[in-house]
C-alpha cells in the first residue's frame, strides 16, 4: 500500500513542474499586460508603464521570472493579486470552500441518481425504460450549462417561486464564515432557519452542475453492468438460486463499480470547468468565477497561483480515487 502511494506521489513531481510551466506560460502568452489592461482607454505613458512593470518584476527575462516563481511556490508563496493586493492563497481559500461545497453536492446528486438509473437501464436492457434513460442522459450530456441554468431559474425561481435565484444565502441571515462551507457554518451559527435557506440555495446550482456528470455516470454504469452481467460468475450466482437483488447488488455491482469510480474521478475536472459557468449564473462566490476574472484582468499572479492550486486539488482527488480503487479491487495495489 505505501509503496503504491509512494509511486503515485513520485509521478506527481513532474506533473507539478508541468503545471507551473503551463500556468506561467499561459497567462503570459495572452496579448496585453496587467498595466495596459487596467489603464484602458485612458492609456499609460511608456515611462510609467516601464516603471510599473519593473516594480512588479515583469521587466526581467522570462526564465528568471519563471525561476523566481517556482522558487516562491516551493516556499509556499504564490504571490499577491495585482488587482486586490491580497495574497493569492488567501483569496483562493476564501473562495474554494464555495466551489468545493457546490461540487460535492453536484457529484452527490449525479451519483445518487446516475448509478441507480444506470443499473435499471442495464437490467431492463432494450426495454422502453432503458431507451428512455439513455435518451435522457444523451440530452443531459449535450445540455448547454448556461441555457439550462437560466431555464431552471426562470421556471423554479420566477414562475413557481420555489427556489432563490442566486447566491449562497439570503441577505436576511448574517452568518460568520467559519469553515467556508455554508451548510456547516449555518449549523454552527445561531441564525434560525439559515441552514434550510443555504440548502435551498444549493438545489438549482447542484442540479445544473451535476447534469453532465449524471449523464456520464448513468451511461457508464449501464455499460459496465452489462459487461459484468454477462460474466460467468454472475450466471453461476443466478444458477445457485440467489435472489436477483443479491446478484445485482453484491456480485455484479461491486465489479462494475471499478470503471464507474474511474469515471467519477474524471468528472472532477469536468465539474471544475462547469463551475465557471454555473458560478456565473448563480452568483456563486467560488474559484471558477474568480479565475475567469483574473484572466480577463491579466492578474498574472492570481492566474498562476489559482491554476496551480486547482491542479493540485484535481491531482489530490485522482490520488484518492486511485486509493479507493485499491480498496475495491486489491489486485491493483500489487
Amino acid at each position: 500500500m505505501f509503496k503504491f502511494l509512494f509511486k503515485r506521489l513520485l509521478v506527481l513531481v513532474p506533473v507539478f513542474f508541468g503545471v507551473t510551466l503551463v500556468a506561467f506560460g499561459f497567462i503570459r502568452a495572452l496579448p496585453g499586460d496587467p498595466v495596459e489592461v487596467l489603464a484602458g482607454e485612458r492609456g499609460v505613458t511608456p515611462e510609467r508603464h516601464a516603471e510599473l512593470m519593473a516594480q512588479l518584476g515583469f521587466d526581467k527575462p522570462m526564465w528568471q521570472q519563471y525561476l523566481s516563481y517556482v522558487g516562491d511556490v516551493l516556499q509556499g508563496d504564490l504571490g499577491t493579486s495585482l488587482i486586490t493586493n491580497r495574497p493569492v492563497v488567501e483569496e483562493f481559500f476564501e473562495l474554494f470552500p464555495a466551489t468545493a461545497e457546490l461540487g460535492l453536492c453536484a457529484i452527490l446528486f449525479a451519483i445518487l441518481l446516475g448509478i441507480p438509473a444506470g443499473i435499471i437501464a442495464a437490467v431492463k436492457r432494450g426495454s422502453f425504460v432503458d431507451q428512455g434513460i439513455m435518451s435522457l442522459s444523451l440530452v443531459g450530456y449535450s445540455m448547454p450549462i448556461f441555457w439550462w441554468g437560466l431555464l431552471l431559474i426562470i421556471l423554479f425561481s420566477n414562475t413557481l417561486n420555489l427556489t432563490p435565484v442566486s447566491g449562497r444565502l439570503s441577505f436576511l441571515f448574517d452568518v460568520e464564515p467559519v469553515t467556508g462551507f455554508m451548510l456547516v457554518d449555518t449549523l454552527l451559527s445561531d441564525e434560525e432557519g439559515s441552514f434550510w435557506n443555504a440548502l435551498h440555495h444549493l438545489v438549482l446550482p447542484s442540479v445544473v452542475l451535476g447534469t453532465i456528470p449524471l449523464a456520464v455516470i448513468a451511461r457508464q454504469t449501464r455499460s459496465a453492468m452489462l459487461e459484468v452481467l454477462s460474466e460467468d460468475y454472475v450466471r453461476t450466482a443466478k444458477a445457485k438460486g440467489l435472489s436477483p437483488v443479491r446478484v445485482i447488488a453484491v456480485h455484479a455491482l461491486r465489479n462494475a463499480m471499478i470503471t464507474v469510480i474511474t469515471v467519477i474521478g474524471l468528472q472532477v475536472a469536468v465539474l471544475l470547468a462547469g463551475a465557471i459557468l454555473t458560478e456565473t449564473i448563480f452568483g456563486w462566490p467560488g474559484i471558477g468565477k474568480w479565475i475567469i476574472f483574473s484572466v480577463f484582468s491579466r492578474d498574472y499572479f492570481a492566474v498562476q497561483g489559482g491554476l496551480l492550486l486547482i491542479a493540485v486539488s484535481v491531482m489530490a482527488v485522482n490520488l484518492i480515487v486511485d486509493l479507493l480503487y485499491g480498496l475495491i479491487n486489491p489486485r491493483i495495489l500489487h
Partner: protein
Amino acid sequence: MKKTLLALSLGLGLAVSGAAQAKTLVFCSEGSPEGFNPSLYSAGTTFDASSQTLFNRLVQFEAGSTKVVPGLAESWTASADGLEYTFKLRKGVKYHTTKDFTPTRDFNADDILFTFNRMWKEDHPYHDVSGGDYKYFGWMSMGDLLKSIEKVDDYTVKFTLNYAEAPFVSNMAMDFASVLSAEYGDVLAASGNKEDIDHKPVGTGPFVFKSYQKDAMIRYTAHDDYWGGRSNIDKLVFAITTDANVRYQKMKAGECHVMPYPNPADVAAMDKDPDINLMRQEGLNVGYLAFNTEKPPFDQKLVRQALNMAINKQSILDVVFKGAGSVAKNPIPPTIWSYNDDVKDYDYDPAKAKAMLAEAGVVGLKTNIWAMPVQRPYNPNARRMAELIQADWAKVGVEAEIVTFEWGEYLKRSKNGEHDTVLLGWTGDNGDPDNFMYVLLGCDAAKSGGNRARWCNEEFDSTLRQAKQITDQAERTALYEKAQVIFKEEAPWVTIAHSVVFKPVRKEVTGFKVHPLGSHIFYDGVDLK
C-alpha cells in the same frame, strides 16, 4: 417536503419587503470591489462600494448631476491667478466607529494632509502600502499640478498649484480624492497593520462598513452621526451578481431593489414590468470614429468631412444601440455644461460626399476601420458598427477593411497611430469639458497618443489652454463653445453616439437618482416605501 419548500420559498419571496422593521435596501452590484480605498483603484464597482457609501470628499457631485457642491469643505475660494485654492472645512464631522477602531476626535485638516500626502509624497509612511499605485491621482496629473498643501489652521487647508487648472475643484470631487482618517492611520501603523486601512475602511460617509464576503455580499449599516443627517436606509446590502440576466431575474423575484447595467435586450420587458421603474439618463460618454490625420488622405479636411457625410448615424443608433443612445454631434455629451447645441452636424448625404471626395482627388480609396473587441457603454457592438460604416463608405466608393485586435493590443497599437480610422470612446471622470476635449483632442494628447486622431490644431488647442487658466465658468463656457465649432469644421472624428444608461429600480424605492458619472448613490433622499 413540498409544503416545506413552499413555505420556505414564500419566506424568500417576501424577503425584501419582509424586513420592514429595519429598512434594508439590496443593490445587485455587478462585481466585487477591488478593495475599499478608492484612491488605489479605478473601477466604478469599487467606487460604488467605497467612495459613494463610506467616504466623503472636500467637494462632491450633487446627486443626479455634475454640479460641484460642498462636502467636507463648507466653502472654498480661488485666488485671482487660479493658483491657490483655500478650503474651509466643516466642523463636527464624525468618523465611523467599527469593531477595530473608535475615533477620539472629529475630522480636521490633518486628515486632508494625510489623504493627499499619502498619494503624493513618496516618503509618506503610507505611500507604498497596498502597492502604492494611485491610479486617478496619476491620470489626472495631480503630481505635476500640486505645488504644496498647507494646513492654515485645524479647519482651513490651502492647495497651491504649479499652473492654473480650472478643473481642479471638479477633480477634488472625484472618487480618488476620498478623505481617510489620519487617526486610524496612526492606530494601524502602531499595531503594524497598515494594509487594513484599505481593506477595513473607516470614513465619514453615510454608511458604515460591516462585512464583506468576496464575490458574494457587502454589508453596511447607516452612520448614525452622519454630518448630512442619518440615512433613511438602515441597512444597505450589495448582493454581487455578475450576470445581467441573473440580476434581472433576482430583481423580478424581489431579491434586489436596484440593479446596474441591464442587458439591452431586456430593457423593453423591464419597461412593461409593473414592479419596476425603468430610469434612464444620457450617459456621460461619447463613442467616435477617429481619422488618423497624419496619414493621407485623412490629412485633408475635405476628405474627413466627406466621410462624415457618408455615414448614416441614425441607422447605427437603431441597429447597434437599439434605440438606447442618441446621435452625437459634439465631442462632449449634452449633460456637460458648455455643450454647444448650435453646432450643426454633417447631414447624411452620400451623393455630396462622393462629389467632395472627387474634388479632393480621392478615387478608389482603400482604407481600414479598427473595431474594438470589447463592449463598452459608448459602443455596445463595435464590430457591427464597423460593418455598417463599411457598407456606407462602399456606397461612396471607399473600400474599408475591418481590423481588430485583443483589447490591450488594440489600445497600444491605436495609440501608436497604426490605424487609418479607429473606433473608440470615452467616459467622463469629473463632468468638466476639459476632461473630454483636452484629454482626447489636445496637442499634448496627440503626442502621447490619447488623441487617436493625432490631430493638433493650434487654434483649438490654444482655446482649450486658455479655458484651463480661468476659473469663471461663464467665460470658460464661451471658450469651449468656440472649440466645439472649430472641432466640427475640422472633423477629426465622426462623432457617433452618446449612450443612454438604463437603471431598473423596484417601485418601492423612492428618491433614487441616476447619476451622470455612473455612480450609484443610496443616500440623498433614497428611501423604501
